[in-house]
């Protein structure tokens, strides 16, 4: 039923990343979590955490600065690959709600460009016309993310400790797993085991567009990815249904978590928000969207 290989692959890489963290924690390898993952004194430190602790303690370590710059450079080079392939939040959302990322509407993709697809497209046209105004909040993802990022850093500076870390869903997902390990290993039952997952569920259920509109870590990465020019999806306009026949399709846009309209650029997301998740390419009934790989 689910023919979306890329999605399966993405979920697998996210699970692998989380699995590495868990294995490191069980083996007591000192590797750490997504906040800082590394060996010995070399670690990839969460860039948001770096900023938060830097403003809270009014001090930055050279190792933190190097890690920050390397992550910035990688994000500029590859785009927000972390968001689409490593971050455990989309995986947890998939498990919780069975929804694929934050697509504007979960369009079940039968990627068959046949006569059947065209009838689907015609239905699509009707449903789309309802939500056209809602989708017109162009360029708002970026701005609201930046506001949350600003408040995150401001609150750390004023309160003197990284406040956002307390509710960061990435941190709390790992914390839940760690609490579980502590429970099994040392028989330490705590309320954490109940409350951390509840906070994660609340964030992902109440703030439905967490990744695109709320996440300050994503907003920080999106600043770096403004310089990203590689691994960008390209629309082959000769194949696109909207160009060839007079159909209002927009499936690529509705499949996108970040409401990037790769065709017309009228979505709330910018092309630099692209997390390279390939959902648009998989959703396209005419296979008109190509990524540089495959």
């Amino acid at each position, binding site marked *: 039923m689910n023919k979306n290989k890329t999605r399966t692959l993405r979920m697998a890489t996210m699970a692998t990343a989380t699995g590495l963290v868990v294995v490191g924690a069980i083996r007591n*390898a000192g590797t750490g979590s997504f906040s800082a993952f590394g060996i010995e004194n070399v*670690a990839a*430190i969460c860039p948001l955490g770096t900023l938060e*602790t830097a403003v809270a303690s009014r001090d930055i370590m050279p190792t933190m600065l190097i890690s920050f710059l390397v992550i910035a450079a990688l994000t500029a080079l590859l785009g927000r690959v972390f968001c689409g392939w490593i971050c455990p939040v989309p995986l947890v959302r998939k498990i919780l709600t069975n929804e694929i990322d934050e697509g504007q509407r979960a369009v079940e993709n039968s990627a068959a460009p046949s006569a059947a697809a065209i009838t689907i497209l015609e239905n699509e046209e009707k449903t789309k016309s309802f939500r056209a105004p809602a989708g017109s909040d162009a360029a708002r993802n970026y*701005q609201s993310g930046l*506001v949350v990022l600003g408040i995150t850093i401001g609150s750390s500076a004023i309160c003197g400790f990284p*406040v956002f870390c307390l509710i960061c869903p990435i941190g709390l997902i790992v914390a839940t797993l760690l609490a579980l390990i502590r429970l099994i290993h040392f028989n330490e039952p705590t309320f954490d085991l109940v409350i951390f997952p509840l906070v994660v569920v609340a964030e992902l259920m109440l703030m439905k567009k967490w990744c695109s509109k709320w996440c300050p870590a994503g907003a920080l990465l999106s600043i770096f990815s403004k310089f990203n020019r590689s691994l960008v999806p390209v629309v082959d306009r000769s194949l696109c249904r909207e160009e060839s026949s007079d159909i209002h399709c927009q499936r690529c846009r509705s499949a996108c978590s970040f409401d990037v309209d790769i065709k017309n650029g009228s979505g709330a997301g*910018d092309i630099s928000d692209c997390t390279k998740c390939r959902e648009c390419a998989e959703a396209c009934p005419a296979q008109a969207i190509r990524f540089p790989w495959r």
Partner: protein
Amino acid sequence: MSQYEGEKVQNQMTKSAGTTRRGFLKITGSTCALLFGLGGMEIILPRSPLLRPPGGQDEANFISRCLRCDRCRSVCPTHVIGLANLSDSILEARTPVMKFHLGFCNFCHQCVKVCPTRALQPFDIKTVKIGVAAVKQNICIAWDSGGCMVCMNACPYHAITLDRQNRPVVDSQRCNGCGICEKVCPALVLRSYIGGKVRGIEVTPLAKRGGEAHE
């Protein structure tokens, strides 16, 4: 790319801003309320001092830097570092604390080495003080019935001596809070207390005087 941007600007100009502005304010307001609420609550609420890994005794510095990344807990060779939880305080949940019923500190510097943000700062092994051991007279076997010298024999710093009645007394100058006395204390096993953490001698945090470790 420029074509996208051009169209986007156009789109932005033509749309009605009412609904989006409301959404925008909602996000701004709720984030402000949540983060400053959490941050403010932690400043107001009283916090009892916790036993931090060595190098983390300057609590204000520690809490401003700790990312809760789990690396120090994970790397500790004696498994003495555990995690604080929500019942300690919302602020301290997931930060590292010393659990001396699970291990003791041999001051190996591993945790300081892996700490990515210097929440745990390099320390001098001669002056560092995680806490001070205190005999719990109502639990300690020697104080009750006498005869036990397990903690005194285990202490590598000769900080535990026996008084005239052969009861252990801690020299708070010599004790650096390594916790081996708490680790080896047999009170739980010999006296059948419920709960795995009861010990006749426990390391207690130094009173809230920041920077005491550097004395």
